[in-house]
């Protein structure tokens, strides 16, 4: 699997995700810069975490309009899988590739901690190495991960099974204290309609090493390799 990671001024988790991708696939991903107008042929495009453009104005807003995003949208329209993590999720939402919006955490504070996620779909490109309903432990680190969307959008997401992950208690049940940011319906990650685009706030890439955060996030990268090798 050959992946390309897009980086913006202010991205800061690109290296974390490149290492996770390389660990899973054995292939070093290439790194693209925000000003690139073309994206070479690739199996997967990843928009990593960080504070693109300082997260000023709105998280992801300025990055969403950078030249590379235009190229990314074209690729995505043709079916190239796209993964957006944290700031990457915010950017995909601002770019219109995923519905809804990510608002300030309900606590109004940045939150960095381990959370539990329930895998809501194990058939996708991104999640086939997990079981449906499996609970995994991965960290979050963000100030604006409070997912919100209008009722129609939420209904659409639920009806079509487009919610990829939800924040849950360790036993897999929904619980307010398990939701780190106040997201509507405890949504942690969503797919686009064709399930070729996934955006999520948590950082599975920081749970791909037994000595730093455990291995629970590795399944996502393994899934991608399974699907795209």
């Amino acid at each position: 699997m050959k992946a390309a990671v897009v980086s913006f001024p202010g991205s800061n988790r690109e290296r974390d995700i490149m290492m996770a991708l390389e660990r899973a696939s054995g292939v070093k991903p290439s790194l693209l810069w925000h000003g690139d107008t073309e994206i070479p042929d690739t199996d997967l495009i990843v928009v990593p975490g960080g504070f693109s453009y300082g997260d000023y104005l709105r998280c992801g807003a300025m990055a969403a309009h950078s030249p590379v995003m235009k190229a990314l949208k074209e690729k995505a329209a043709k079916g190239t899988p796209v993964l957006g993590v944290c700031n990457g999720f915010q950017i995909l939402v601002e770019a219109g590739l995923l519905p809804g919006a990510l608002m300030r955490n309900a606590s109004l504070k940045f939150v960095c901690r381990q959370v539990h996620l329930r895998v809501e779909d194990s058939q996708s490109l991104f999640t086939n190495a997990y079981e449906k309903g499996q609970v995994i432990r991965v960290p979050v680190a963000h100030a604006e991960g409070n997912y919100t969307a209008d009722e129609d959008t939420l209904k659409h997401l639920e009806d079509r099974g487009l919610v990829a992950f939800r924040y849950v208690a360790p036993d897999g049940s929904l619980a307010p204290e398990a939701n780190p940011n106040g997201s509507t319906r405890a949504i942690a990650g969503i797919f686009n309609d064709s399930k070729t685009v996934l955006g999520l706030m948590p950082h599975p890439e920081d749970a791909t090493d037994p000595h730093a955060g455990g291995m629970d996030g590795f399944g996502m990268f393994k899934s991608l390799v399974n699907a795209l090798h």
Partner: protein
Amino acid sequence: MIPNTKITAEVVQEHGLTEDEYALLLKIMDREPTLAELGIFSVMWSEHCSYKSSRVWLKTFPTSGPKVLQGPGENAGAVDIGDGLAAVFKIESHNHPSFIEPYQGAATGVGGILRDVFTMGARPIANLNALRFGDPKHPKTRHLVSGVVAGIGGYGNCIGVPTVAGETNFHPSYNGNILVNAMTVGLARADRIFKAAARGPGNRVLYVGAKTGRDGIHGATMASAEFTEESEAKRPTVQVGDPFTEKLLLEACLELMAEDAIVAIQDMGAAGLTSSSVEMAARGGLGIELNIDHVPMRETGMTTYEVMLSESQERMLLVVKPGAEKIAERIFKKWELDCADIGVVTETGRLVVKKDGKVEIDIPVAPLVDQSPLYRRPHVPSPKRPEIKAANTKVVEPVAALKQLMGCPDLASKRWIWDQYDHLVGNDTIQTPGGDAAVVRVRDTRKALAMVVDCTPRYCVADPKTGGMQAVVETWRNLTAVGAEPIAITDNLNFGNPQRPEIMGQIVGCIEGMGEACRALDYPVISGNVSLYNETNGQGILPTPVVGGVGLLDEYTQTVGLALKNAGCALVLIGETKGWLGASLYLREIAGWEEGAPPPIDLAVERKTGDLVRGLVRGGKVEACHDLSDGGLLVGIAEMALAGGIGAKLEAAPKGTPDHAWWFGEDQARYVVATADLDGVLATAKAAGVPARVIGETAGASLTLAGGSAISLDELRSIHEGWLPKYMS
């Protein structure tokens, strides 16, 4: 302000210079200074930049050793960690700005220390912070905690450097003077450490980074003057941090450093363009000529005085090799940062600053720096405090006392704080906040750096020398407990007004103790910072010499944390317990008594004990390890139990030691380990000549004392985790 203001006695005084200092200035200048020149002398001779009260004492620190690549004197210190790499680190205070504007003050403190480290050519890999706030009941405290924590997180999170450790204390002595000390650790190639000495007359001086505004003018002088209600009202223009620009500056600087372009580089921190240009020139024994007209400015009508003294953030000054200007320009343009040629290195030995073609500043650099005031201020030693006998202290049932201690502001969990810090970015944080020391992997090697900040001010006020020693020793112990070999320290000396002999006595005592400990442990001082005049209306803070320690693990998988992992392990107390309650947390929190001599320190015993423990950790003989400090043995065990979610059954105190002294005494040089190899541990300790004693066994979900008194971990956790979130809500 106009440049040719008449320099009256009042103007001189406003600039914080004494009559004698002004007389010295006149001698050096051989004429009356312009206002801009006076401003430059004022900041360069401020306590913050000149260390005029502390310099003679700082010289007594041991600063060299086989691993030291760069000791004090540069932007940060550096030590060799093998594999051709260096660990670069320093600590810096931003106390006064954080009191005035907690968010921006703390944020720009982090920004400043990050720059000190990446100026050296190092990529920052971790941030730490040491915080001291006033009484939780004081009306300002909550607001200050909230702003400072958000500011530290806001800056570090955005730039993508994990904030991995810190400490937070509360005490009424900080009501009007909080302490915000920030430390950064970075990694550089050992053969590519960048320095700040200007070389090569004719070489161009480049300004890079953000534009200059009227931010924080006089910040350096403010950090050197006592606080009054009035100065709070004056509210100097505070600096606003821009971590996004700093991230770009970091990447651009590292990119330029990879080219063969830089002669010298220095960040513009306190006293901005002034201190950076003067220090660069002084270190190289040369002169610098600057043209104010070429300085990128974000405001109009700025005077030379303002430009030279502005403390706008996210700026650097470079001297580049001939012809390298183009390379710098290209790289900074790529990162959308300003890069301006603002001057040249000269042979004159003078700092000459021109505006509109006219010379507005012309100062001989060497005397400005070398002849800066140096004071051996009068000092009186702190009165010796009596030893406090356990028999004379209040006795409270151990579990009841434990509950009270685990929920007191100093011991309560600081999770509410570190949850707001991205402590994971980089995916190299092996030991996260909450343990004895953080451990961060060194990429592309098997190594890791352990790091910690620590100080116990109540010991320092009780006996400055012992307290200074203890601050060093505790960091050494924290590093040891995670299996690291302590390498070197940086320190931040926070004290009150040095013109008061009793405060100066604290400074001298602490420095003496710190130096002694560093020598005995081969643990040199490689960088540091001094913050004096932490007083409000004549009330000084507790003496707070914060120590930042860094240690090395050759194999990162060998580290252990404090969390108990399995039931059925033996808990072994290593080191000797006499039950020292003087100046202890028990005494303060339970008996309401801030009295007594602090626990004595035997450096040889510390070393022997620590070497034993490190060997046990690295040899895989223990599953968990924790050094004992604030609160003593029972608190230490409780912390281990909470971290792992596994309880313990504890044996009775040895005969002859009263319960409260045994469980809460703060004797030094002690660790608790959990082991499945009890015989091995005891035999190794015996061979090393270090006392070791089984004190219980890991079991269940509560702490149970001999005699049956017990507390469940759930209850203990809600006490321990509950205080800060509740206080802040």
